[in-house]
């Protein structure tokens, strides 16, 4: 697999999940620059900084976990929607969870134009392939 995305952001408070998922993203050349944030708040701050500084490369994708303390995945999406268009037009969200989602939660994701896909954790090669297909 050739490198597909220059920069992606991985947002997960669980460090073990983050290390493992980063490795999976790296190993087949899905991305060469994977920025890991163990806090959704910090990731959001970084996106705000990027929006104000055109010299910083915008991530193409943000992999965000659903269940996190302080700010969970759904709350992150709500805040993401308030970011400037310069970010929202460039960056898509891949929503991750280690649990089954309820029908309501799935519908919420399906109707959000910023969400590229929902995937289960840990990230697998097949889920990355499905993202690539959507992005073609």
């Amino acid at each position: 697999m050739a490198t597909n995305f220059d920069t992606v952001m991985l947002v997960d408070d669980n460090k073990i999940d983050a290390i493992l998922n980063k490795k999976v993203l790296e190993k087949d050349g899905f991305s060469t620059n994977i920025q890991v944030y163990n806090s959704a708040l910090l990731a959001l701050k970084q996106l705000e900084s990027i929006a104000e500084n055109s010299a910083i490369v915008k991530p193409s994708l943000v992999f965000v976990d659903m269940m996190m303390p302080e700010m969970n995945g759904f709350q992150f999406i709500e805040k993401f929607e308030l970011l400037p268009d310069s970010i929202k037009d460039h960056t898509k969200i891949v929503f991750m969870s280690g649990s089954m989602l309820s029908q309501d939660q799935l519908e919420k994701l399906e109707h959000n134009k910023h969400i590229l896909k929902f995937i289960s954790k840990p990230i697998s090669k097949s889920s990355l392939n499905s993202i690539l297909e959507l992005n073609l």
Partner: protein
Amino acid sequence: MSVNGVSLQELKFFNLTDILVLLDNDVDTLKVLIEEFIDVAPQDIQDLNNAILSNNLQVITEKAHKLKSTFKYFGIVTASKLAQIEELAKNENEIEQIQIMFESILIDFEGALDEAKKLVS
């Protein structure tokens, strides 16, 4: 296959087959993950215990969810019991049921922690 002189087939509490597939047999990253497990999991178990003692269903759900995925990656069989604790707390079941389930996890956790230390010492 062995890690740090310990044969993975001899492990009783860990089953590292699946995680090694995900890691393409990268033993160095496996060791980083095991070190993280040693650093973080005891505190998470303690936090879960405290949440059960204080009947804090929200924190029980969060901690059980986090530990569940960690246990699953390392092939610790009681991952399924953590999934049950998460569901019990989400559905606001009796705390006594959660307490019994939690106590049955501790022996496997202590065994896994001992094995983890041998793998990276």
